[in-house]
């Protein structure tokens, strides 16, 4: 009887998904759907928050006030993105602080790209253009995700992201049009971030065992390889336009497929970084852990103050 019931519920659930009806927080959903979303959404939230670190590093060294204001605004947006996503994760019954503790203990991951350092000012341009560009490619597809709160958060995030990519491209364009040294800085930044940006879409489709279920549930709409190809097709002409060279000797336009061909990705490097051996993994998680520990007294003081104010009001 019970088994039958859950089979029926699952069928109903899948029918809704197939009919493009969004799933909302208190609706019945399979446990595995809930778990998959909690994992994906909290890791997405962690990525937004950890993603602030490499860029925040350059705020005080921005070359002028305009660039500084822009970078501040961008980093502040990323904090907001983290908040939208943690809130959306909470609608699934997840404990927000527990998901954050999972990040700090190493149990939860975040986008591996943020384990690379931003070693020059040009890297800030490459991050906006390529890293935010790749994130947008991914997030635009997620705007149609079957889970309502996630999809809505993505719509808001995508609206905010478009300036992130533009400011990065503008920054690199300025460098690329500058002195030979500046142009070289821009080229080196592209060399550093090109391959890690392509890895952001995750393993090749045949190495991505959970993708099929996510596609069936319409959490995922496009496969890793499709998204990666779309990103390459969109980005290569942008590099050419500002006179930068994409660091791939095999990159070439394929008339037949209507896409760029490119070299195989170094997945060893990807798995090394995912596994904790990237240049900055430890530094990033340490920074987040310290932020939580050092902020504890602030959170407690705010609560004590709120209680005091409330009791004064009622007295």
């Amino acid at each position, binding site marked *: 009887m019970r088994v039958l019931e859950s089979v029926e519920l699952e069928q109903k659930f899948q029918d809704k998904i197939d009919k493009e009806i969004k799933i*909302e927080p*208190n*609706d*019945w959903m399979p446990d595995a759907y809930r778990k998959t979303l909690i994992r994906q959404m909290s890791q997405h939230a962690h990525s937004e928050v950890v993603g602030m670190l490499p860029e925040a590093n350059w705020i005080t060294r921005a070359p002028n006030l305009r660039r500084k204001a822009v970078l501040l605004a961008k980093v*502040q*947006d990323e*904090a*907001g993105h983290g*908040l*939208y996503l943690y*809130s*959306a994760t*909470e609608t699934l019954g997840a404990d*927000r*602080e*527990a998901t954050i*503790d999972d990040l700090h203990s190493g149990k939860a991951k975040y986008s591996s790209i943020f384990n690379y350092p931003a070693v020059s000012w040009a890297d800030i341009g490459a991050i906006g253009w390529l890293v935010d560009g790749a994130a947008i490619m991914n997030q635009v597809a997620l705007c149609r995700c079957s889970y309502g709160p996630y999809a*809505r*958060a993505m719509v*808001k995030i995508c609206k*905010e992201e478009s300036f992130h990519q533009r400011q990065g491209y503008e920054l690199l364009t300025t460098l690329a049009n500058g002195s030979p040294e500046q142009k070289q800085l821009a080229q080196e930044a592209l060399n550093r971030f090109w391959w890690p940006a392509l890895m952001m879409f995750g393993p090749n489709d045949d190495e991505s065992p959970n993708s099929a279920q996510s596609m069936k549930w319409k959490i995922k709409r496009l496969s890793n390889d499709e998204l990666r190809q779309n990103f390459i097709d969109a980005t290569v002409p942008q590099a050419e336009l500002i006179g930068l060279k994409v660091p791939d000797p095999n990159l070439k336009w394929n008339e037949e497929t209507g896409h760029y061909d490119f070299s195989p990705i170094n997945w060893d490097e990807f798995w090394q970084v995912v596994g904790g051996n990237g240049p900055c993994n430890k530094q990033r998680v340490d920074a987040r852990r310290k932020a939580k520990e050092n902020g*504890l007294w602030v*959170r*407690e003081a*705010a*609560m004590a*103050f*709120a209680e005091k*104010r*409330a009791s004064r009001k009622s007295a």
Partner: protein
Amino acid sequence: MSTNEWPLWEVFIRSKQGLNHKHVGSLRAADSTMALDNARDVYTRRSEGISIWVVESNYVHANDPADADAYFEPSDTKIFRHPTFYEVHEGIKHM
């Protein structure tokens, strides 16, 4: 684990004069003053609002979505509540 987690608040924003407040999301804050300030900082960075309401999530009550079909059934079956249910002579104006 923090023992003293701030309560959750739902955020509603009026985007411009003449429109109603609309739910935009939620956040955690120690009290209503902080909830309002944080809502302004995260949900209205691009002139999305001119007025904000915050309500502690605990105080929001909702019907059970599992029973939604039966719960809303009375309104689905009363098609005579809609003007299109009625036949009107052709040529009749202003009705």
